[in-house]
């Protein structure tokens, strides 16, 4: 029996929708037990469609689908509520998460922990219009994402297996982890040991750690995105240049 062919009451979030034919939508969702999936929502673009307003990103839903083949048909969507809509900059952060998931998460691969961390993250974004916790949250989500995808970060010891010295300087090599730099050694990207330890502990109180963690995560994301530039990052930049 194919488990995915008939599912009901599945917690999920819409990541993005694409128009399909005259009145339908292809809905890209992140579901708890089945991961990222593409579902066909028939008639969802009709003016009086019951689910038209429901298939909005960043809102907790419970959905049901059925069918065979690659694209299944969305049968039901129920709003779970309780979470304010994202607004302002938080909305752009939400788009960033979705773009990461769409680009990095393979289809139909369950990631329950990542789902929980995504749901938690959206809750934080919705509750925090002042934008105080956002940066730290984005870093821990990026970390969780890499971990779930099997690209876990090495942050507590260097490539030689020695514990990270908070005062020493390191560079980060892909698939290898932190490499300690000798006094006069240069590298494209240099991090102080404290940054790596703070990132491991998800403590972003120190401005230097915050700044360097961001740079390290950006390098890692760029590597795993294989050169694809994120649209949300471009818009973030445009927004900051205003």
């Amino acid at each position: 029996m194919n488990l995915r062919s008939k599912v009901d009451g599945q917690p999920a979030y819409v990541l993005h929708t694409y128009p399909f034919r005259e009145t339908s939508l292809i809905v890209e969702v992140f579901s708890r037990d089945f991961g990222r999936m593409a579902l066909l929502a028939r008639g969802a673009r009709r003016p009086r469609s019951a689910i038209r307003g429901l298939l909005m990103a960043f809102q907790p839903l419970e959905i049901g689908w059925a069918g065979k083949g690659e694209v299944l048909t969305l049968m039901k969507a129920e709003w779970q509520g309780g979470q304010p809509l994202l607004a302002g900059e938080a909305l752009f952060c939400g788009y960033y998460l979705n773009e990461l998931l769409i680009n990095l998460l393979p289809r139909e691969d369950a990631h329950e922990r990542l789902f929980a961390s995504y749901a938690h993250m959206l809750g934080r974004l919705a509750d925090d219009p002042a934008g105080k916790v956002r940066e730290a949250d984005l870093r821990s989500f990026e970390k969780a994402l890499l971990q779930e995808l099997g690209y876990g970060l090495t942050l507590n010891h260097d490539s030689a297996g020695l514990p990270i010295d908070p005062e020493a300087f390191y560079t980060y090599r892909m698939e290898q982890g932190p490499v300690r730099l000798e006094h006069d050694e240069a590298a494209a990207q240099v991090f102080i040991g404290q940054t790596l330890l703070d990132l491991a502990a998800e403590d972003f109180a120190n401005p230097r750690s915050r700044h360097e963690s961001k740079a390290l995560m950006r390098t890692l994301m760029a590597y795993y995105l294989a050169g694809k530039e994120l649209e949300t990052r471009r818009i973030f930049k445009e927004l900051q240049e205003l």
Partner: protein
Amino acid sequence: MAYHLLQRDRGGAQGLSDALAHALQTIRHCNKCNTFTEDDVCARCMSTHRDPSLLCVVETPVDMNMMEQTLSYRGLYYVLMGKISPLDGVSARSLGLDRLLARALDGVIKEVVLATNYTNEGEATAHYIAAMLRPKGVTVTRIARGVPVGGELEYVDSGTLAQALRERKTCLG
């Protein structure tokens, strides 16, 4: 439709083709509000009966018509012809928001009313425009959302009701 026209209504097909060709040749964007028009500036923007200090920003010409049908708005418009949608690769630059900026800073406009849709993309667009215009000293407002007029709570969807509750107002007077 293509087969029907070719088999049974060649005159109609010619008419349709002429109309499309004519539209493609003559219809362009209004220099002021960006909607479709046959002139440089559309009749609505030329009107002297409108309040030139108010500018309403909408996503599409259809949205503009809906605003007009309210018979409650007497200001001018700016039609974006789209919305910011990061995941579809539509940024502020590709939407040409610099033209809206120039329009809003003509010295006459005092208030910009954001009437983009209450979807995530509409909200993102509204946030961007507000961030762009606020530092320039223009008042930026957003149309309200909530329970529809004549709406009974029993039949309103929970998402709308939840948002209406969050955006509740103090009763005055």
